[in-house]
C-alpha cells in the first residue's frame, strides 16, 4: 500500500485549494455567470445581482439545515411542508399576538417538528427518508386544516421591515443569509458539535466509541432544519404579505439539489457549507438567467436537473481520474 507522497510545503495549500470541490464549484458558478451575462444584458446589472441574492434567501436558509442533516447521513423531506405549516402558524399567530412573540413561536414549532423527526430517527432507528416523508404528509395536511384551505393575508404591515430595511445598502434578508452561512461554517468547522456531525455521517459507530455525543448530534440537525424552515418562511411572508398553505411545495427538492450540487455525499460525512452556498447560487442563477432570457418556466426543471446530473457526473469522472493517476 503506497503511503501518500509529501507535497512541498509552499504550494501545498494552493494545490489543496485547487483540488477541492468547492473550488471547482466556484469555477462552475463563475462560468455560469459569464455565460448568462453574455446571454442577457440584464444579468450583470446591480439590480439583478440583488435580485439573485434576494431569491437565494429562502432556499439558502433551508439548505443550511439540509446540509446539517445530510452531513449526518440523513435526509429531511419535510422542510417544504414545515415551511408551509409554520407559515400558516405564523400568519394565524400574527392575527392575535405581536410580531416579537409570533415569530419565535413559529420557529419553535418548526424546531419541535424537527425534534419529533429526529427522535424517531435517532432513538427508534427509523429510516430518515420514511420518517420525514411521513412528517411531510402530516405537515402539509395540517397547514390546509389550520388555514381553512385558503391563503391568509392581512398581516401587520410592520412585518416587511424584516426584509426591506437595509444596512450599508444591503437588504436585511441578504445580510441575514450571509451571517447565517458564516455562523454555520464556523460551527461545522471549529466546534465539537460540528465535527461530531461530520464524524457521525462518516462512521457513526466509531464516533460513538470515541466518546462523542452521537445521540444528541443525530437529533440536532433535524431540529435545526425544522427551525430554519420556519425562519425562511418568516422572510417569505414579510415579502409576500400572505401565507399560502401550499407554500414551500417541493422546496425540499431544491434544498437537497443545492446541497448535492455543493458536493455533499448523501451517505454523509462529506460536504461543506461553502459548497452548499455555491449550490444555492448556481440554482438561483440558472432560474434567474432563464427567466431573463424569456425561457418558459416549464423548462427550468429540465435545466436544473441536467446541471445536477452533469455536476455529479463530472465529479465522478474527476475522481476516477485522480484515483487512477
Amino acid at each position, binding site marked *: 500500500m503506497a503511503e501518500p507522497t509529501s507535497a512541498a*510545503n509552499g504550494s501545498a495549500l494552493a494545490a489543496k485549494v485547487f483540488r477541492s470541490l468547492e473550488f471547482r464549484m466556484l469555477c462552475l458558478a463563475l462560468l455560469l455567470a459569464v455565460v448568462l451575462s453574455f446571454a442577457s444584458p440584464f444579468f450583470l446589472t446591480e439590480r439583478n445581482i440583488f435580485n439573485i441574492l434576494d431569491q437565494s434567501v429562502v432556499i439558502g436558509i433551508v439548505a443550511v439545515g439540509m446540509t446539517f442533516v445530510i452531513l449526518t447521513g440523513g435526509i429531511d423531506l419535510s422542510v417544504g411542508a414545515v415551511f408551509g405549516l409554520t407559515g400558516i402558524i405564523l400568519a394565524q399567530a400574527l392575527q392575535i399576538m405581536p410580531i416579537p412573540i409570533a415569530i419565535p413561536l413559529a420557529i419553535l414549532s418548526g424546531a419541535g417538528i424537527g425534534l419529533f423527526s429526529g427522535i424517531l430517527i435517532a432513538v427508534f432507528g427509523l429510516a430518515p427518508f420514511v420518517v420525514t416523508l411521513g412528517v411531510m404528509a402530516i405537515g402539509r395536511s395540517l397547514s390546509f386544516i389550520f388555514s381553512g384551505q385558503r391563503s391568509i393575508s392581512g398581516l401587520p404591515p410592520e412585518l416587511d421591515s424584516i426584509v426591506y430595511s437595509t444596512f450599508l445598502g444591503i437588504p436585511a434578508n441578504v445580510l441575514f443569509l450571509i451571517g447565517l452561512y458564516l455562523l454555520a461554517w464556523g460551527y461545522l468547522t471549529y466546534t465539537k458539535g460540528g465535527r461530531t456531525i461530520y464524524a457521525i455521517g462518516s462512521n457513526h459507530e466509531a464516533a460513538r466509541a*470515541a466518546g462523542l455525543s452521537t445521540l444528541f448530534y443525530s437529533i440536532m440537525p433535524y431540529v435545526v432544519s425544522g427551525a430554519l424552515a420556519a425562519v425562511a418562511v418568516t422572510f417569505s411572508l414579510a415579502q409576500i404579505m400572505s401565507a399560502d398553505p401550499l407554500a414551500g411545495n417541493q422546496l425540499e427538492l431544491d434544498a437537497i439539489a443545492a446541497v448535492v450540487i455543493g458536493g455533499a455525499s448523501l451517505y454523509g460525512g462529506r460536504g461543506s457549507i461553502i459548497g452548499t452556498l455555491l449550490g444555492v447560487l448556481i440554482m438561483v442563477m440558472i432560474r434567474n438567467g432563464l427567466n431573463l432570457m424569456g425561457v418558459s418556466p416549464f423548462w427550468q426543471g429540465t435545466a436544473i436537473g441536467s446541471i445536477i446530473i452533469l455536476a455529479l457526473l463530472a465529479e465522478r469522472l474527476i475522481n476516477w481520474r485522480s484515483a487512477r493517476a
Partner: protein
Amino acid sequence: MVEVQSSHDITARAEPLLTARGVSKHFGKTHALVDAALTLRPGEVTGLLGANGAGKSTLSRIASGHIQPTDGELTFDGAPLELSSTRDALRQGIALVAQETSLAPDLSVLENVFLPDLANPGHLSFRAMRARATDLLADLGHEHALPLDAEVRTLSAAQRQLVEIAKALALDARLVIFDEPTASLSATEVDRLFDIVDRLRAGGRALAFVSHRLEEVFAITDRVTILREGQAVCEDVATSSLTQGDIIQHMVGRDLGAIYTKRDVAPDAAGDTVFEVRGLKATPWVRDMSFSVRAGEIMGLGGLVGAGRSEAMEAIWGLRGRQAGDILIHGKPVNLRKPADAVRAGIGFVPEDRRAQNIVPDLSVRENLLIAQMGQHKGFLRGYGRKAEETAALLADLGLPADRLDTSLLNYSGGMQQKIIIARWLLTAPEILILDEPTKGVDIGTRSSIYRLLQDAADAGLAVIVISSDFEELLGLAERIVVVSDGVTIADLPAELLTEEKLTLLAAPRTSTERNQAVLSDISAAHGGDAFWILLDKEETICLAQAGEQLSGLVPGQAAAAHETRIPQAISALGADFIAEDNGHRTLMTQMTDRRGHDLGWIGLTLPENADVPEPADIRARVHNLTHLET
C-alpha cells in the same frame, strides 16, 4: 469417523497443476505485483506468505479469475491459462475461498452451495441438490455441522467458510485457494479446518493457503512461496527446510529478531489495582465476568472467538447494555452509561474492528487522532490546539511526518492505522487502556512496534488490557492472563505458568468442559471424596474443574505450587493404587489423553480418611470412556 492421513506419502511429486511465472499487476501507479510466481501441485498444500500488502491476495485473485494480470504467464494442467472472469475459473476447476465470503446472506446454505448452478438455465432439482450437498459435507466430515435450510446470515464465520468450501467442491474444484481462512476462526475451528484441508489434500486436490500466521504454516503446508513487495522472494520451497526465522526474514527482508521481547518487570513492579470489574453480565454473551488490572501491568484477556470478551468490553464501554456488575476505578464504583463517561473516567478503548469501529474515513489523520480527546473535553469548540505538544511528541514516536496529517487515514497500511488509533487514546492521557485484538490484520513488521507502544504505555504506569485470540501473542505480551469461556471468567494466572496448550484447554467452550465436570461429579458421587481435573507443570498445578467435598485444596482456575500438594507422589505411583497422604487422605491420579493422543491433564480423586477405597481400574475406565467418546 475415518482417520485421515495427516502426512501424505507422495514419493514422486506430481506435475504442477497451476504455474504462474513473472506475474505483475498494476493498479494505477501502485504495483501490487512485480514479478510473482506460484506453483501448485495436486496433493500438496502450498503456503502463500508475505507481510500485509505483499500481494498475496492479489496473486490469489489473479489465479482465481477475479482480476486479470498486467503481465505474466499462467498455465493450468499444462495448457496456458487465461481467465476473464471467476466463472471462467470455476469452469476450469479453480475456486477461491476468500477472507470476506462471497455468499448471499439471505439465501439458504443449500442455495449458496449451488449458487453458480442457479445461474444456469433449466430446471433445478432441489432433491438432487440436497442429496449432493449432504454427500459433499460428509466428504468434509461435517455432515451434521450445517443445517442445509438455515439462512447463511445466521451462521458463524466458521460455518460460512464451510459453505464456501462445499461450494467449491460442488463444482469439482481441483484447485482451491484459501485466502487467510483462519483470520476469524477460534482455535478449535482452526483444527477442524485443518482436518478438512487434510482431506482435500488426501483427495489429490492442489491447495494454496494464504496466511501470515507462521505456526499455521508449519502445521499445514508442504511447500511455501513467499512474496515481498509484489515479488516472489522464495518460491516453491519445502516448508520443512525453513525455520520460522527464515520465513520472517524473507517476509520483511531483514532479520527482525524476536517479535516478542518481554519487559523487565520486577515481580512487585505493578502498582495498585486501578481497574476492577465484578460480576459483569450483559446477555447473551457475557454471563459472569470478573477481573482486575494494576497500574503498570499488561493483562491479557484470552479466550476463543465468541467467548464474550469483546462484548464484555463493549458493555463496560457503554456500547451495550449491562444487566449486572460493578466497575471500580481505584476501588471506587463508577457508573459508565455511555462511551463519553468511560472516556472521562480515564479509560481508553480500541475496539476490535478497525474499519467499522475506529476509523472515521472522511476525517483527516489529524482529526482521527484528536477525536477521542474531543470526546473527552467538555468545551464547546473542537479544541484541537489543546494537545499540540503531546501530539507532536506522539507523531515523532510513530514516525509520522506532520505534513501528512491532512491526508486520509485510509491511505495508510493497517499497521500505521492501528498505531494512529492507539495514539488517539494515548492523547487522552488514560489510566486504563483496553485493546481488542490490536494486531489483527497488522503485518509482522509492524506488530513488534505496536507491542513496544503498549509496553511503553505500561512502563509509564498505564493499566493495559489486551484481548487476543492469538495465544502466542498473549503469552508474549501479557504478564497475567485472565481466561474467559462462554461469558464466564474461569482463570486468572501469571503468564509464565501458561503455555498455548494450557490456554487452549482453559479456554475450551463450557459445553465440552461440562461433560468433564459431569464425570467428575459422577466419580465423586459414586465414591465420595474430591474429584478434580488438573494440568501439571514442573512446579505448578492448575486446576480446571473440581467436584465433590473439598479435600484437595484445589480451586478451579487457580494455580497451586505442586509441592504443597501430594500430587507428585500420586503421579509417581501411577499405575499402582491410591497413595496415602500425611493427613490420612488417599489420592489416585489418572492421566487423560484424547483420541489423537494429546495430553489433556490429569484426573484425580482424593478420598477422606475412612472411606472405602474403590478399585483404581474402575476409575481409569470411567476416565477413558469420557475421553474416547465420539465428539
